[in-house]
């Protein structure tokens, strides 16, 4: 049986629902586990040990992002960077301590090019595709974001980058079952195998890498 993971979900205190409730609902939908990645301005350590701890770093400058990575890298399992700004995307792709660069696209630009793709490949940074805009918006804005994500996906495919699919949920109503996420990812251009590995194998490998790091750290001590 395939194990599915959603690596970018927001909970209390940033949003309404508690991590426990989100885990319960996501398990019902077929996810093995979820990572709670609240934005760095609202971040608090998780009480539950069953849920994967994470953070989504929001920075206004490259230096600020570097400082935030230094502060939070050892505190969480999954470190996600809130993309959009070109300078932020560049720093995120150039730092091997970053796990996922989420939504590198912004309103007008897709935020990813061949140079950043090479950096991301070298530093093993995954590119996150958050598809919450597909139900949050309709019309021109949705089609614009979809076209930017398609562009990014074609770059990721060309450079064989790791891709992570996420619902980017802000509440339990935003949680979508893996089959639904896979169905929606077809609009970005993903085929069945790509979307399945973006929800299962790749997140699992990222988790293995980080959890292994924690274990070896303990052994050294």
């Amino acid at each position, binding site marked *: 049986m395939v194990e599915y993971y959603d690596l970018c979900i*927001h909970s*209390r*205190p*940033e*949003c*309404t*629902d*508690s991590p*426990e*409730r*989100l885990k*319960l*609902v996501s398990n019902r*939908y077929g996810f093995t586990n979820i990572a709670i990645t609240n934005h760095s301005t609202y971040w608090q350590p998780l009480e*539950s040990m069953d849920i994967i701890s994470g953070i989504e770093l929001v920075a206004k400058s490259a230096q600020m992002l570097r400082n935030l990575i230094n502060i939070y890298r050892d505190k969480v399992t999954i470190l996600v960077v809130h993309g959009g700004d070109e300078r932020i995307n560049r720093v995120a792709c150039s730092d091997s301590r970053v796990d996922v660069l989420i939504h590198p696209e912004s309103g007008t630009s897709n935020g990813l090019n061949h140079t950043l793709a090479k950096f991301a490949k070298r530093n093993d940074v995954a590119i996150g595709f958050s598809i919450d805009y*597909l*139900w*949050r918006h*309709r*019309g021109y804005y949705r089609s614009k974001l979809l076209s930017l994500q398609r562009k990014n996906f074609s770059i990721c495919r060309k450079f064989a980058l790791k891709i992570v699919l996420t619902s980017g949920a*802000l*509440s*339990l*109503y*935003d*949680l*979508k*079952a893996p*089959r*639904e*996420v896979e*169905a*929606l990812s*077809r*609009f970005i251009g993903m085929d069945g195998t790509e979307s399945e590995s973006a929800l299962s194998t790749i997140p699992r490998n990222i988790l293995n890498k980080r959890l292994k790091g924690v274990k070896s750290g303990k052994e050294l001590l």
Partner: protein
Amino acid sequence: MKVLPPTLRDNVRYVAFEVISDEIINAKDIKNEILSATTSLLGDVGLTNLGIELISFAGQKGLLRCRHSRTEDVRSVLATIFSVKRYRLSVRVLGVSGTLAGAKEKYLQTEKRSKHNTSFNITRPISGKATRIHDSEIDIVTDDNKVIDRSDVGLVGITIHDNKELK
């Protein structure tokens, strides 16, 4: 008019779905919302290709008919439904079946979940009034408007594990 022979009829699939919402939704509203979401995502031609039709909707569960090759499109359309009459909701596909009887038997059997309304104040993990309890899940109406605005929902969801007093 005579009914078409089976070889000339469209192959259909029946999609069973469940609505998770703040408030009880009626069949007419959900039907309109499905049609609106389909035309918005796939356009009028897409709506025709899907051959989508709401067969039944009762309680929180419903049944749709569509062309047999278009079930993935139906999944996408249902996933893009955001709200009905300002009430936030989420639609989950329970399963797909080739026959009406099969779909009803497999997916639309009523679950015996102890779901009831309640009213008591709560302070942890967020202050507010608990309104619904189903199994270990509790829905709360809170005064914290900032959190409500950020998530764009009406109720706050917690479990009994979030508050030791509730266990």
